[in-house]
């Protein structure tokens, strides 16, 4: 389990770096969130859970928001992905994109809610902007690419004898 977590974490870190060095501040795509959502949709729950911990910690360490905020948001995303996997049986691209939009929106709302409870954000609606909505839609449009990336990484691991553990489902 260590090697898959390491590999996926490295890819996640690569996405974080590219977001930081190439996209910021012009574009704020939720690449890490989308990546995590697609890992969550795959069979291995321990992998998705561990990855949510690693990426949540990474984002929390680089932010000035309360520690644990992004960690919670990442775990929420994995929870959403597991729900979608079990209840909606997502297979086609269209529903996958819609599910991504719903999950990312829920994640943003969750973050806003925690920030509001902790007094960092005055009102929930003042934080939600149309610009943010567009960012989520643009991120969700990358869903097929992200799904291919996750499946590709799994295939690499399978060639080296990895089998997805389904515990926790």
């Amino acid at each position, binding site marked *: 389990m260590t090697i898959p977590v390491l590999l996926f974490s490295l890819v996640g*870190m690569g996405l*974080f770096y590219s977001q930081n060095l190439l996209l910021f501040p012009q574009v704020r795509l939720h690449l890490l969130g989308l990546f995590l959502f697609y890992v969550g949709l795959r069979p291995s729950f321990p992998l998705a859970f561990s990855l949510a911990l690693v990426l949540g910690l990474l*984002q929390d360490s*680089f932010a000035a*928001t309360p520690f644990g*905020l992004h960690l919670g948001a990442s775990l929420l995303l994995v929870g959403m992905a597991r729900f979608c996997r079990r209840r909606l049986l997502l297979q086609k691209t269209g529903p996958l994109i819609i599910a991504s939009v719903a999950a990312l929106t829920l994640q943003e709302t969750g973050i806003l809610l*925690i920030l509001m409870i902790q007094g960092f954000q005055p009102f929930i609606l003042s934080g939600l902007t149309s610009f943010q909505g567009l960012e989520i839609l643009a991120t969700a449009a990358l869903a097929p690419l992200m799904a291919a990336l996750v499946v590709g990484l799994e295939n690499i691991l399978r060639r080296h004898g990895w089998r997805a553990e389904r515990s926790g489902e």
Partner: protein
Amino acid sequence: MRPQTRFRTSLLITATLLLIISLLSLSVKRSPILEKVEGVVVSLAAPGLQGLHYLGSAISGIWEGYFNLVGVQRENAALKRRLDEYAQKEVRYQEAQQTLARLESLLDLKKEVALPVVGAHVIAYDPTLWSRCALLDQGQDQGVRRGQPVLTAQGIVGRIVEVYPHYSKVMLIVDRSSNADAMVQRTRVRGILQGKGGNRCSLGYVPKSADVQNGDLVLASGLGGVFPKGQVFGKVTGANKKTPGVFQEIEVTPVVDLSALEEVVVVKVVNLAASP
């Protein structure tokens, strides 16, 4: 779902919720353990970012410096730097003139210039929407401490909120948690500069009777003891008196481009009010 699996899922959800709530509570109380965890994660992740940042800068430097308009770019950069210096000098000159006019003989600009500083490179930003902060490549080992102000030649950037052995985190003035005592240069009206996220701030608690106009410079008043007096926060880009209540709504845009910071200086004094 089997009962055993259902029990395990419920246990996992409860444990996760407890973990998150505990972390958030510890974070609010500024737990040293969390700071250490944060420090370890930053120390592990930042060198990669730093390396890529330098590599990117080197490649773009080679491209722009040698292949694309050799010499012109350098000259342009030098002229821009000089222009920035003159703009800053102009602000200081006006500030000094007003101070002299009010016979404030106690103002000692030399003291301001003589503050100990350390230069730092910005190596990363928080790319999320929820906070505005940046990571510097100078930390505790270089004398950086929490609360120290961070400046550029154009004006104020923010203040240090977390310090790790070789890195530090600066909360930018536009972060929603950022507050600072400020004043309008032209009329000396004071208020509290609050970050509004994105790239804007607001000057709060300014009465409607106060004269504030678009284009007015907003400076640090020096009263908070964090930012050096007279340093520039930004320019007034909107003043609205047609709001309910006794205060007007003033929007301030930072003079520093906080999304494209490269080199900054950290003033190595935590409490300027208490410094000699």
